[in-house]
């Protein structure tokens, strides 16, 4: 039985009929065309599908669209404002914190949640804070540097 859901995504309300088994990740990618949210493992491990659900980082491959009914979602597409990259996006660019870029949207969304909770994290706190996100390319060094640089800019 299809159900109607209303989800606010990046500031825009979307009302759609969905099957209960539709994952939030597929709702974003296939219904709304927001393909910045990647599916890596599809088994809740890699974090590539991380988005903010009511401000908290979640793995959208492990949330049903019906569970997000009435909630607000922010994806990587919702971070830049007026053509200006978000400080984390700019910092990833400046610090060469991506190679293939597949993990990057999830990594940046998880880092957004981390900086909200800990505006000035230590290197160790960044590493544990992002341990739900796997990167197969960078070796993490520059990702940690990028997140640190944003904390430094704002402190």
């Amino acid at each position: 039985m299809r159900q109607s859901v209303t989800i606010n995504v990046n500031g825009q309300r979307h009302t759609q009929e969905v099957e209960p088994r539709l994952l939030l990740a597929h709702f974003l990618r296939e219904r709304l065309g927001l393909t910045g949210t990647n599916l890596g493992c599809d088994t809740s491990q890699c974090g590539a599908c991380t988005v903010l659900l009511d401000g908290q980082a979640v793995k959208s491959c492990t949330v049903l669209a019906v569970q997000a009914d009435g909630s607000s979602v922010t994806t990587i597409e919702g971070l830049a404002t007026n053509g200006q990259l978000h400080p984390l996006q700019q910092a990833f660019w400046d610090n060469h914190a991506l190679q293939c870029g597949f993990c990057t949207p999830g990594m940046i969304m998880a880092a957004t949640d981390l900086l909200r909770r800990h505006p000035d994290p230590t290197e160790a706190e960044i590493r544990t804070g992002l341990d739900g996100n796997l990167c197969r390319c960078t070796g993490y060094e520059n990702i940690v540097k990028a997140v640190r640089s944003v904390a430094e800019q704002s402190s």
Partner: protein
Amino acid sequence: MYSAEFEYYRATSVAEAVELMRAHPGAKLLAGGHSLLPQMKLRVSQPAALVDISRAAELSGITLDGEMLRIGATTTHAALAASPVVSEHCAILSEAASLIGDQQVRNRGTIGGSLAHADPAADLPTVIVALGGTLTAASAAGPRDVLAGECFVDLFTTALTEGEVLTRVNVPAYGAGTGGAYAKHRHPASGYAVVGVAAIVTVSDGRCTRARLVVGGAQPNPVSASASEAALEGQPLNEATIAAAAAQVAQALPNPLSDHYASADYRRQLATVLARRALVTAAERAAER
């Protein structure tokens, strides 16, 4: 990956959840979904219906009620880890919650879901058993309390009956001279406990008056290391007494789990080492209170 098809219902109260579970045989409760949805995507589990309890306001929240901490079943691991009341009155619980999976998992997963799922590698069952907690559950027959120590029957099996809704977890707040610690060997890929040990000690006039030592991840359910507990009671807590007690932990583990990551012998060894570490930290914390 898509799960098999199912009907979805949202309960806004405990009464509604109980009624929906009664009306839909074969339905499963959905809390954070971080054990259930992965299983459904792999089609290991194919419930006909899900009853989502995550929006039932009466099921979430943490309150200190006299000497007892009452924790709503849908309280997330992240909320437990960040709760000042929990870190003040029952710090072992926030410590264990902060070691679960990763931030995204902690933002969704709930204490009730973790206890009801009864994964042998989960962290919270071990800690709640060590605390001597009780679980309050609701069903058409009314509410009842289940002792945590009697709840975890086997792998993925609890004393909760079909359709019963776990509503609240009750644990005693630490008294004077009490300290606890949770020591865990994380599986490097999943984050789950290969072995996790919860230690809670009470010290009075330099001697241990009460010790609780519970091992998770080693056997199908959390087990109390009774010989170790008995060895500590009446003793001063120091390196020698703690090492002697930890050396008896293996007695409580007659047939440990064994898999390609950790053999039965390795799990016994981990339990012994982690018991010593947890007891040392618990004793230090007890001395500070």
